[in-house]
């Protein structure tokens, strides 16, 4: 391997690593706020990428049916609860968000000819379609179990992952898709060709991380999410409801996931089940950060990207084996540095 190749591999590694870092942040956020280890994080990557690809080739994305169906399910559950417990004032909101909003998205897709839209509009439409699935999934799968042990929530997360992968296959078939790059530009930097999409990915990731930072540090709701993550009971006593915090964190996770999908769709072919492995690599990063530290998780994720990139050069068949076996020394390291004291309840 000469320097040229090493740098190319580094570029690859950092590009993927930036995506893993975004996912790692989402995973840390969701775990801290809801205690859900969000295995389906990667599915949002695939759903985002495949939805965009469908819109670009003029197919109706299957995720639309999922949005409509999930909307109806949430509306039914919420309406039943509102009627039982006397929350009639909430009825218009429930209908607006779960029935009318998905209908509007459907109308946009059928009436506005997405194939002729500019790419930024296609991306916005994709996000408008995929992101609301996050809070809807929270409502249907996790909200009824908000007080359950982490282990039960994890099993539910795995079940959601399984259902979403099956639905992905149903909606998009077994063939993969690739979308056109955001820009065809490439730059020559000291003999290394850096292509435009890499810059897009890295740039967008950094921007998104900065926005998240500002959200958590400067806004009322961002601080409320942090408060929930630090002390759930304390947050509830302030009137920050667990449900609101859960939905908000799932919304952010879905946004991060779908956006990641949109960003990498021009770089790699995305299949219905690609998201899972991508998400898990974010996980390895998140675990490096102990599912608690955002910066360490992001750094860990970049490391995973680099490791993956170099091992695909040295032993491409064993790329996944190497990346996922890395978690073992990481866990050993964590087990030596974490002093787990059983908390008094």
């Amino acid at each position, binding site marked *: 391997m000469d320097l040229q190749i090493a740098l190319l591999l580094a570029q690859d590694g950092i590009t993927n690593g930036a995506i893993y870092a975004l996912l790692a942040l989402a995973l840390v956020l969701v775990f801290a706020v809801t205690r859900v280890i969000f295995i389906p994080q990667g599915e949002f990557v695939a759903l985002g990428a495949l939805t965009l690809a469908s819109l670009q080739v003029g197919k109706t994305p299957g995720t639309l049916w999922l949005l409509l169906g999930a909307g109806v399910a949430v509306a039914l559950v919420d309406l039943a609860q509102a009627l039982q*417990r*006397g929350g009639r004032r909430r009825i218009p909101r429930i209908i607006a968000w779960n029935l009318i909003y998905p209908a509007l998205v459907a109308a946009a897709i059928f009436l506005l000819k997405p194939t002729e839209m500019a790419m930024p509009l296609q991306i916005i439409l994709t996000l408008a379609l995929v992101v609301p699935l996050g809070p809807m999934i929270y409502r249907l799968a996790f909200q009824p179990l908000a007080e359950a042990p982490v282990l039960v929530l994890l099993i539910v997360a795995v079940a959601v992952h399984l259902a979403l992968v099956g639905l992905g296959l149903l909606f998009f078939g077994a063939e993969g898709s690739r979308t056109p790059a955001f820009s065809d530009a490439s730059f020559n930097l000291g003999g290394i060709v850096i292509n435009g999409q890499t810059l897009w990915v890295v740039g967008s990731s950094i921007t998104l991380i900065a926005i998240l930072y500002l959200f958590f540090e400067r806004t*009322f709701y961002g*601080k*409320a999410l*942090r*408060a929930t993550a*630090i*002390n759930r*009971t*304390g*947050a*509830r*006593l*302030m*009137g*920050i*409801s667990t449900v609101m915090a859960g939905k908000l964190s799932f919304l952010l996770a879905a946004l991060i996931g779908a956006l990641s999908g949109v960003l990498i769709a021009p770089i790699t072919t995305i299949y219905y089940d690609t998201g899972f492995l991508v998400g898990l690599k974010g996980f390895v990063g998140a675990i490096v950060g102990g599912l608690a530290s955002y910066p360490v998780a992001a750094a860990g994720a970049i490391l995973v990207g680099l490791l993956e990139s170099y091992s695909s050069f040295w032993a491409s068949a064993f790329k996944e084996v190497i990346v996922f076996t890395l978690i073992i020394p990481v866990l050993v390291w964590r087990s030596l540095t974490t002093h787990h004291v059983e908390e008094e309840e």
Partner: protein
Amino acid sequence: MEHESKPILEVADLCVSYGKVEALHHANLMVGAGQIVTVIGPNGAGKTTMLGAIMGLLPRSRGHIRFLGEPQPEIEVERMVAKGMGLVPESRALFGSMTVADNLLMGAFMRHRLGHRDHPETMERVFQIFPRLRERREQQAGTLSGGERQMLAVGRALMAKPKLLLLDEPSLGLAPLIVKEIFRVIADLKQAGVAILLIEQNARAALQVADYGYVLETGEVVLEGPAGQLADDPKVIESYLGLGGAARAASSRSQPVAS
């Protein structure tokens, strides 16, 4: 009865169970507007459970609660906070890695959500009550001393401008000087019109500031009455105010305290 003022909180026949074990049996309790009412009793008597059920942190197995004269068929913490009830739990439940100012800000979360934007003034008022918090405003809550934490917990609850404050063992583990400070604030809050339901192990101090008191034992209200009467009740003196025989003598020495 000193219960002539309009009740702000009425609890009737409240029962709470953990699994098969009932921790609170048929408790009745009332807090009048602007009153301080205290609940005393030994560890494990169900005092914290009672507060949890009133606030909506714990599900009740039966019983009725009226707050501000309205029945509360479905109690959710969020709703009770919005209506003007605040709880300072025994654990304080602070946001340790956030600053003192941000902790206070979170206290105003519900008001902010309901459209009130008066938290800067409220925070100023809290700083006047607890000047120490102003000094420490940019410090992380986790680095505060025990007394400062308690001040922050009470201050944070005040940010919501509550009509009724539930305090769970505010003097727990605090040095006498700080306990005094806390009780001074409790008395001041009463002056400002906040009703308080106070749970205390320091029964003497509690009965001194309170208007009315209840004694809870193994999940049941066994005694109630105006605080002054309770402080003189031989059974209360024996069980909660002193160390058996010697304390009886001691407490008769310090009798004027209760008046």
